[in-house]
């Protein structure tokens, strides 16, 4: 008789019990992965034959290698199929390994044996990891050998494959432990499945519910800063890891640590549950009786709240008045509380009669749901009133929505990665004038609350309310995000905004043309930069040196800008800037041979009349235009007046179903848009005097856009279509016509008269 009770023997014996999982893992990693890699490389090699013909041998060799390496990266790097399979295998392995705990028969067999619980756990746990690692590493090795044979291997492929292996292993561990925990807390496979899904999606559901309720009930909630993706999820952590790797080509130690820590904590909890798990739990819904009411309440409450939220939206849509539908919201929420609790109790007891048991849990769930609902409805915790005390604020970022964006600005970080305006401001805007900001916030919130209470039209004569995002950085390290509506027509608000928007910190954190990131980008030799200045119709290309000089001057001039003078002026022109970078790994067959994909950035920087130094530079270099049109280019101008007021009247008279919007755009369900069409009047001008007078008051529509400050705008009803002379240069590079608009109050009298609607 030989003693074989060593750990390795146990491991071997356990492997026999889970042979099919080993077989699946081996099939996937050792067979399918290398085969697909080989097929992929073969396909790439065949598809890249044109490269040898299109370029010299050395370049072709390098380009083909790049394509092959790209294929290797797609197979062995952070590939979706491997992640998917790793996830499935982790769940299967975790559940299969400990599935004996579902069966009394197996429990009697295993637990009757003189084997320590800890040893049995360790054997199964290690086996579950080995059946992932060993085939994965073997498959990786075979694939790399295939890659080497096809000259597709280089340092980057090895590094990425190793990084992906490490990250995938961490993800595997996280999911594996989550599956084991779900199993330890439940007594049969169906409930384990539910448990695993709850672990994966519970946080998401809670976050979704909270976001929904904040959006529904709080005026000053901003979606920016909200994280709907669960923080305590191996998938989110893995996603973060991959995102960082995509940008920086390194495994982010912080995210790797979080993922490992998560795995460790969940693993330890699973182990604790395993040690405490009673044998009699086999076949039951829940292993630990004490968890039953908590889990029931924790699932029922957010589910009921989500149901309430959905009904809330629905009722608003149908009745246009939330109070009319509040009965439905309460009814459906209560119904979900009762049904949810009953259903979970039925699952607990595997008996439909169990639905009526544990009424106390229904009451607790109902009370908690009602409390949360009331807390949001009446803002018990003062979310909407919250303004931090100025002495507790470290700095603030104030981000107007769609303000001074030129002809479309992109925000980007120092590495070129794209950002939103809020993301950029969060990183680069540190406003120190907190007293001024807090005064503006208080003033705006009071005024807005009053307006909401009176149900005033938010765009009426009392002022325009413009949306902004606030990011409070508190001294304790906390960051608070809020929305703010500012009355941009209010005098005191304007004074405060002058101070805020006029500050260097604001310009540094909001005006992308003033950004160091842009300056650095312009210094990169590998980037292709094109720049031009003009009014979006007349544009002149400028050299890179000129651009750099102009930007430097602009950045100085920007000190002159504040809320009021930007609001009260119209840009004389815009610097348009396009930067692009070729992506080295993206070789493809273009129309003219080898081409590469690019990523690019586009900016439009407004130049205002008060930027005197910039304008002087533009004048000196011949870019500046005194007028928005060159008279010598104009063949004729057609002015179109929509006469929206008259159109509205006509529509009413003709009892059309529909409405005319403030912008004069007619929406109708009627097939005949009689009022709108019949009120529009066209007038054509060719006389030089008339053309000159018209040309003085018109601007390209793209240059003058009504934005956050509700500053100078174009007349809503009037459009001027400029027809250029056929032989003019503008016809060649822009087109035969361009649409302009009249600046408010600058429609010549004769045009008004000619285009007025006459019955």
């Amino acid at each position: 008789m030989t003693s074989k009770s060593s750990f390795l023997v146990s491991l071997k014996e356990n492997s026999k019990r889970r042979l099919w999982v080993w077989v699946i893992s081996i099939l996937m990693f050792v067979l399918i992965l290398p085969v697909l890699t080989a097929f992929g490389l073969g396909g790439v090699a065949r598809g890249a034959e044109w490269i040898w013909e299109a370029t010299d041998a050395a370049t072709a060799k390098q380009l083909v290698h790049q394509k092959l390496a790209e294929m290797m990266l797609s197979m062995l790097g952070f590939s979706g199929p491997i992640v998917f399979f790793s996830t499935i295998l982790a769940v299967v392995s975790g559940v299969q390994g400990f599935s004996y705990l579902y069966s009394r028969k197996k429990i009697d067999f295993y637990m009757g044996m003189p084997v320590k619980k800890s040893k049995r756990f360790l054997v199964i746990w290690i086996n579950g990891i080995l059946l992932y690692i060993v085939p994965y590493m073997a498959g990786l090795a075979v694939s790399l050998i295939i890659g080497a044979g096809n000259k597709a291997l280089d340092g980057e492929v090895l590094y990425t494959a190793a990084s992906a292996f490490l990250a995938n292993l961490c993800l595997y561990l996280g999911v594996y432990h989550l599956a084991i925990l779900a199993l330890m807390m439940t007594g049969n496979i169906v409930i384990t499945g539910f448990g695993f899904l709850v672990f994966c999606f519970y946080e998401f559901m809670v976050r979704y519910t909270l976001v929904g309720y904040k959006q529904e009930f709080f005026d000053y909630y901003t979606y920016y800063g909200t994280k709907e993706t669960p923080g305590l999820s191996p998938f989110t952590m893995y996603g973060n890891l991959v995102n960082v790797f995509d940008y920086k080509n390194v495994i982010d130690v912080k995210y790797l640590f979080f993922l490992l820590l998560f795995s460790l904590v969940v693993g330890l909890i699973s182990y604790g549950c395993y040690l405490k798990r009673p044998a009699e739990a086999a076949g039951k819904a829940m292993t630990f009786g004490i968890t039953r009411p908590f889990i029931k309440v924790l699932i029922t409450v957010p589910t009921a709240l989500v149901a309430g939220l959905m009904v809330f939206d629905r009722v608003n849509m149908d009745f246009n008045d939330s109070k009319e539908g509040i009965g439905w919201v309460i009814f459906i929420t209560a119904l979900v509380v009762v049904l949810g609790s009953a259903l979970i109790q039925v699952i607990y007891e595997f008996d439909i009669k169990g639905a009526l048991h544990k009424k106390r849990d229904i009451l607790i769930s109902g009370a908690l749901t009602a409390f949360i609902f009331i807390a949001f409805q009446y803002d018990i915790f003062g979310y909407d009133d919250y303004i931090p005390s100025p002495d507790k604020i470290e700095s603030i970022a104030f981000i107007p929505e769609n303000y001074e964006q030129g002809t479309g600005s992109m925000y980007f970080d120092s590495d070129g990665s794209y950002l939103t305006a809020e993301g950029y401001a969060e990183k680069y805007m540190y406003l120190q004038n907190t007293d001024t900001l807090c005064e503006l916030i208080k003033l705006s919130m009071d005024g807005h609350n009053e307006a909401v209470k009176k149900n005033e039209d938010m765009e009426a004569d009392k002022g325009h309310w413009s949306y902004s995002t606030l990011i409070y950085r508190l001294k304790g390290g906390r960051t608070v995000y809020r929305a703010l509506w500012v009355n941009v027509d209010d005098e005191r608000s304007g004074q405060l905004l002058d101070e805020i928007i006029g500050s260097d910190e604001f310009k540094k954190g909001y005006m992308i043309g003033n950004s160091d990131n842009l300056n650095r980008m312009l210094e990169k030799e590998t980037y292709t930069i094109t720049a031009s200045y003009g009014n979006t119709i007349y544009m002149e290309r400028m050299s890179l040196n000129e651009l750099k000089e102009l930007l430097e001057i602009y950045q100085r001039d920007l000190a002159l800008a504040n809320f009021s003078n930007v609001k009260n002026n119209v840009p004389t022109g815009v610097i348009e800037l396009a930067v692009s970078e070729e992506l080295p790994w993206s070789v493809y067959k273009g129309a003219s041979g080898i081409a590469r994909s690019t990523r690019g950035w586009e900016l439009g920087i407004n130049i205002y009349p008060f930027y005197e130094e910039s304008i002087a530079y533009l004048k000196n270099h011949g870019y500046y235009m005194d007028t928005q049109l060159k008279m010598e280019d104009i063949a004729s101008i057609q002015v179109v007046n929509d006469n929206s007021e008259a159109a509205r009247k006509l529509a009413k008279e003709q009892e059309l179903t529909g409405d005319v919007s403030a912008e004069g755009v007619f929406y109708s369900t009627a097939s005949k848009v009689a009022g709108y069409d019949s009120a529009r009047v066209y007038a054509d001008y060719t006389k030089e005097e008339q053309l000159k007078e018209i040309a003085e008051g018109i601007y390209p529509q793209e240059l003058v856009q009504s934005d956050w400050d509700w500053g100078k705008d174009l007349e809503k009803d009037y459009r001027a279509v400029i027809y250029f002379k056929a032989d003019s240069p503008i016809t060649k590079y822009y087109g035969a016509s361009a649409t302009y608009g009249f600046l408010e109050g600058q429609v010549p009298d004769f045009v008004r008269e000619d285009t007025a609607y006459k019955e």
Partner: protein
Amino acid sequence: MIEIRNVTKSYDKIKAVDDVSVSIKENTVFGLIGTNGAGKSTVLRMVAGVLEPEKGEIAIDGLPVFDNMEAKKKIYFIADEPYFFANSNATDMQRYLCSVYPEFAVEDFYNYLVNFGLDKKRKINTYSKGMKKQLALICGVCSGTKYLLCDETFDGLDPVMRQGIKSIFASEIERRGMTPVIASHNLRELEDICDHVGLLHKGGVLLSKDLEDMKCNIQKIQCVFKTIDDEAKAIKALDIMKNEKRGSLNVLTVRGNKAEILAVFATVNTIFFEALPLSLEEIFISETEVVGYDVKKLILG
């Protein structure tokens, strides 16, 4: 010795075992008898260290059993539905058990397989129910443990097999002092195997005694008294547990040893007298009726 002291165990607030105390001596075959739901399996699962008692203690040779490897090494537990690995054969089971029980008797194992006509290469899931029970018993016997816990393992075995197992038990008891503990709901199945019997009912122990003691202390007498006075005199002198009268024939179940009882009958006149052997069933009926239970309903259905 297995000592079960004031052990209680509940499932979902239903008491399966309530304050049970039993001692199981070494070198005996202990029979644990009770109806379905009496708590036999729960007691055995607790003794095997599978379940943890809520109250009370279970000690194997003085060692607490739950989560104690030293105590568990002394036990092999055969559940009412023995488990074998999926798609395994007897050899696979032997290999696994060898890794767990260092004293596993491999040679004996294969000898027993041959003796019982079990094919070592045949997949166990193709075995009949009885064959699986035989294999489980062989595994248990060969494990080399001191205590062998069998839950309903003999139910359904044919007499030949039972006899075979009985002889294996006898030789193992003699050779290495093995102590089988056999739970069953059927008295007749245990009668020829057990030395000591414990009766469980509704989670508690009704009685626990040596079979021989019980047999010696209860006698069954069939007699016809000459006169009514003789009958009255004898009944007065005897500790009668049960008296069935069929015409003039008295069938008496009497507590006491045989010599004392015969001495009493020597003092009265009888027309006919005969001392009959008692079955385990009859002993149980008598013992339990004394404490107010109808064992026919409890055990025999």
